[in-house]
């Protein structure tokens, strides 16, 4: 049973004092329902992702207590991908015909923190200052730059693209373009990454309405088909966040595994993809993820970024809505924000940031602690 997306909705990303995560979730759901032209009472099941909100399904208090199966999921930075994967599977398995995946979050400013013991790490790992995700990203891109000849100005170019695209996106958190010089001159947080090369935890919500592909044209003239959605976790030997040690043997990261599985499931290859959303926790992560998802060989990013290949009018537009760098990262919502953007791009409804040439195939990727990735492939 194939799956189609017939509606998407977003509560803007940013900081919204006095607005709860649940409120934002309800806004995103209402917008997705309106976009799909269905009513809440038509929805047969739901999955909701959140980190900060214990029971995001409590959103039914604002929408209607219809008694549907409504399951909450949390899976690190791949939470939204997990909600989407489970929602799609529910339809593929034939359990239900019409459902919703929603993500919502409301984080405090500053780097994420947690009790290391909850990540199978010893308490001293946190006490000594190792339990910091940003320094992992610093190490990973610093090693990648050493191994494949990527320069620091390339990281600044990638971040500048994020802010520039964010300026075109009314729902983005950061809507002010920043120059490469300003990005390079901002304080270094974890060498080679500066403050403006990182995204920030923030607030927001996103929702998508899904149905059986064969029913899609009953709801909309522009269904977007969910051709694949996958989640993978790290294998032994992958270089992953929150690792007090790594074995000598090396393995590809969880993104590589999730990506390969998604291409296989979709019967689509990276050469067929027209528009891409990648996890850009930092500018370096976007550079690495370009290769990990098969869009270029390791090291080719240096020239491709310089040539503008990943700009909205480039050969392969990446993070057209500004990505995490301009939108921030409300963990539960982030991956559905990516899907929201791809759906708009494939429908030709992305306004000022519309990719030219009628893109047919879109791709999204999430990555986060403790080594979990989610990929989806969508097409018209």
């Amino acid at each position: 049973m194939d799956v189609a997306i017939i509606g998407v909705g977003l509560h803007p990303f940013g900081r919204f004092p006095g607005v709860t995560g649940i409120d934002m979730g309800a806004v995103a759901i209402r917008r997705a329902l309106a976009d799909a032209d269905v009513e809440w009472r038509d929805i047969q099941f739901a999955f909701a992702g959140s980190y900060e909100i214990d029971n995001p399904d409590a959103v039914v208090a604002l929408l209607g207590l219809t008694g549907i199966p409504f399951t909450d999921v949390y899976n690190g930075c791949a939470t939204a991908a997990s909600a989407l994967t489970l929602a799609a599977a529910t339809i593929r398995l034939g359990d239900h015909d019409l459902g919703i995946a929603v993500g919502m979050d409301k984080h405090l400013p500053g780097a994420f923190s947690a009790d290391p013991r909850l990540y199978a790490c010893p308490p001293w790992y946190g006490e000594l200052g190792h339990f910091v995700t940003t320094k992992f990203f610093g190490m990973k891109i610093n090693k990648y730059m050493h191994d494949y000849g990527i320069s620091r100005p390339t990281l600044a170019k990638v971040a500048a693209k994020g802010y520039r695209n964010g300026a075109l996106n009314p729902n983005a958190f950061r809507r002010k373009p920043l120059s490469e010089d300003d990005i390079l001159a901002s304080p270094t947080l974890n060498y080679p990454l500066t403050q403006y090369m990182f995204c920030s935890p923030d607030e927001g919500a996103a929702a998508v309405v899904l149905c059986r592909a064969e029913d899609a044209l009953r709801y909309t003239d522009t269904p977007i088909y969910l051709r694949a959605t996958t989640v993978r976790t790290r294998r032994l030997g992958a270089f992953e966040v929150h690792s007090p040690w790594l074995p000598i043997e090396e393995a590809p990261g969880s993104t590589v595994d999730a990506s390969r599985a998604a291409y296989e499931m979709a019967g689509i290859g990276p050469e067929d993809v027209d528009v891409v959303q990648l996890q850009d926790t930092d500018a370096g992560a976007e550079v690495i993820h370009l290769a990990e998802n098969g869009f270029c060989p390791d090291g080719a990013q240096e020239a491709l970024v310089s040539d503008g290949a990943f700009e909205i009018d480039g050969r392969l537009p990446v993070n057209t809505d500004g990505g995490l760098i301009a939108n921030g990262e409300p963990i539960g919502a982030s991956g559905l924000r990516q899907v929201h953007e791809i759906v708009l791009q494939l429908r030709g409804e992305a306004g000022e940031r519309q990719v030219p040439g009628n893109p047919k195939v879109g791709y999204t990727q999430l990555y986060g602690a403790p080594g979990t990735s989610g990929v989806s492939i969508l097409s018209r």
Partner: protein
Amino acid sequence: MTSVPAAEGIFTWPSDLPQLIGSRCTACGIVTFPVQESCPRCASTEMEEHLLSRRGRLWAWTTQEFPPPSPPYNGADGDAFTPYGVGYVELPGEMKVETRLTEANPDVLSVGMEMELVVVPFRTDDDGNEVVTFAFRPAG
């Protein structure tokens, strides 16, 4: 002033030549740090203590230029915070171990450089003891 390790059982202390305390799987031979009760490769529960090499090569590195969120971090904060290096040092035939580095200057650190284990002051506890931790420094 007495020096006390930041945690029991992670490095031999006191010692003139301290070593990190890991474990080795008697079934498949993989070495872990710190000690763990079961093997992350073959799931065996037959693990034995294994003292790690004191020298290796820098495999990956960065700098930590802001105080980590506290809790869990309990070292120097605010104005007392000094940036430090962080990296993985590859210990030949054993593993890549994540560690504080004594050096935080990007112009000095480079992948592949020879490193050795040292024990360095980390903070002073409420009883006035000097809490020490493991780190790696450029060797020779």
